[in-house]
């Protein structure tokens, strides 16, 4: 926001409240109420307003207080955000960032525990990225703001408390690239967002058992970085996808199709996809735990895959 005065933020409680997860803390004091705009509760309209502002020269960052609320903005995100550059024959660009916390939290109930990656992934004309560490959150956010394309940035409710040393100097990450988390030889584990941590936990167990998993955080949910992923598949010949998305029509489903189409010859076993159960996230803690993929399941899956 310092670098470019056309960058502005809009959303519910982003200003005086500092953001529901404090992502925009103190920004309103620094930049004023118009640049960090507290909106009324009207997702479809303020997202559309962000799109109109993007078409006329600003670079808005629209926050969904919880990603689930963006379902109310689906009209604008699908029809206008994704399509207008195309239907205007390239005349108007929409450099908007739509972001917010999503995913399954701690007993927040079904409607606050939604994973919208699968709903938005088919929309032509948008890019989707998911951050998972403080380092890549900053880098991806910068990249998204600087991108001329509309980008949806998925953050996770349970990851806001992570602490990490990040470089003082300026850095911007690549929106379309995946991140190699742990190189390995035996199996390629593809994951994103919070499940990265479950995977790494499982990886510890696996290493103790003598396995050498390669863990890749795909980060870019649309488009997929088929280069990094492909190189890994060519090396290990076995793929496990671990995601928090639902199974039906999820990111994992698309990824499975993409890998099968492009790298079929390199696979020694069918791709295994571990996703959340296709249920509305239950409130009870025990049920909620069984909804998402747990490290133990990841360990079992790798063991089976590597037989």
């Amino acid at each position: 926001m310092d670098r470019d005065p056309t960058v502005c933020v809009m959303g519910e409680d982003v200003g005086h409240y500092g953001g529901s997860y404090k992502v925009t803390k103190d920004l309103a004091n620094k930049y004023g109420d118009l640049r960090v705009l507290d909106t009324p509760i009207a997702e479809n309209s303020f997202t559309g307003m962000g799109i109109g502002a993007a078409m006329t020269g600003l670079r808005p960052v629209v926050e969904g207080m919880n990603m689930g609320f963006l379902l109310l903005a689906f009209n604008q995100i699908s029809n206008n955000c994704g399509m207008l550059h195309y239907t205007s024959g390239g005349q108007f660009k929409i450099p908007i960032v739509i972001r917010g916390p999503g995913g399954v939290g701690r007993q927040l109930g079904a409607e606050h525990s939604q994973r919208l990656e699968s709903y938005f992934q088919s929309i032509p004309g948008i890019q989707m990225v998911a951050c998972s560490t403080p380092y890549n959150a900053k880098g991806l956010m910068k990249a998204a703001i600087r991108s001329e394309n509309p980008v949806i940035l998925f953050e996770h409710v349970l990851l806001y408390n992570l602490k990490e040393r990040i470089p003082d100097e300026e850095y911007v990450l690549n929106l379309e690239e995946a991140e190699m988390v742990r190189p390995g030889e035996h199996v390629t584990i593809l994951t994103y967002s919070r499940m990265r941590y479950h995977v790494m936990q499982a990886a510890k167990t696996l290493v103790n058992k003598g396995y050498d998993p390669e863990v890749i955080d795909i980060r870019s949910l649309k488009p997929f970085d088929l280069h990094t992923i492909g190189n890994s598949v060519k090396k290990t010949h076995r793929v496990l996808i671990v995601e928090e998305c639902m199974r039906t029509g999820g990111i994992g489903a698309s990824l499975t199709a993409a890998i099968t189409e492009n790298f079929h010859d390199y696979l020694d076993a069918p791709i295994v996809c571990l996703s959340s159960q296709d249920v509305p996230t239950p409130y009870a803690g025990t049920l909620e735990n069984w909804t998402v993929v747990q490290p133990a399941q990841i360990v079992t899956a790798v063991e089976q895959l590597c037989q």
Partner: protein
Amino acid sequence: MATAFSSSIHAIQHSRCENPSIASKKPSSAFLGSTHKLRFAAPSRSASVCAATRRRSSSVSAVSEVIKEKKQKSASSSSNLLITKEEGLELYEDMVLGRAFEDMCAQMYYRGKMFGFVHLYNGQEAVSTGFIKLLKKEDSAVSTYRDHVHALSKGVPAREVMSELFGKTTGCCRGQGGSMHMFSKEHNLLGGFAFIGEGIPVATGAAFSSKYRREVLGEADCDHVTLAFFGDGTCNNGQFYECLNLAALWKLPIIFVVENNLWAIGMSHMRATSDPQIWKKGPAFGMPGVHVDGMDVLKVREVAKEAIERARRGEGPTLVECETYRFRGHSLADPDELRDPAEKAHYAARDPITALKKYMIENNLAKEAELKTIEKKIDEVVEDAVEFADESPQPPRSQLLDNVFADPKGFGIGPDGRYRCEDPKFTEGTAHV
């Protein structure tokens, strides 16, 4: 037609900092909350066109002149001339262009040159001409699927609109948008939207940009306004109300123009709306609501002038309900069986073009011959547009993937490590990612 804001609110400071992003103080909270009081004047029966200017000195009035039930008076009731000869000719030419163009569209559609859903504007020309001819090029207009004439009024060449309708690559949107998605960056036409209501937030965003430029970026003379055109059906849609709130809350320079033609395809406005007087909904949100005879371009123009000036001064939005009528069906596919022939005849007698012609001749602003010359000129323009569109090429296969992304890196990195868009054969391929 200003609302009675308490005077302190009017002390809106403009941020004059050189480097607003770092050095700006928090602007005053004036735009954030609505702490004004509203008072209403009783509905007035006096000459419609002067009411707006008369009331400027006093405080609020929501002027209403509900004339639906009354027989239409002659085209202009004002004794003073409202326009100069030049202005009159400009308005006449614009309306004739709109009418001739739309009539040609119908012909072309039935000859199989134009496809899909085409929604014609015949009968409503006074609204488009009355409002848009008052705009500067930098002002924005946002429309709906009934957008051909808005595009023409805003300055998009007839050739480009016709080409777009034929689906040719020389169209204003390269053939990718079609009848319902007319855009022009040069003329600041921000669409063309197929779903009703979804253009209104976009218009609100354009108005927000204008305010942002003035107050954050420090462009002190930026007073661009935005017009949002939409119909009576849209006025029952959530986005309409949400945007009325946003615009009034932040005093955005936008005018909400309701083209109330009484019908949403086959649903009569009266059957769909609990309170059919749409102009009344403005004051409920803290902005003036005005009803105007949308078949009379001069009346529309007077109301538009006031609303646009109000927005330019930074006083906020206005809701203008134009009572108008479409002479044809909802679209070229609509058999138009539900509307009462008496109703159609009533409005056909109030044809805005005939009315303006009569006004100009009766007030010695133009001779019949001059107007005929204009009509002939327009016929040639429209013929030329058709010829141009006919001769233009269809889009080639390589255009399919153009413009999906402003930055084609969005198609991602292929298995070979290169960005897909770096491959020179990329646009002939597929968009799989």
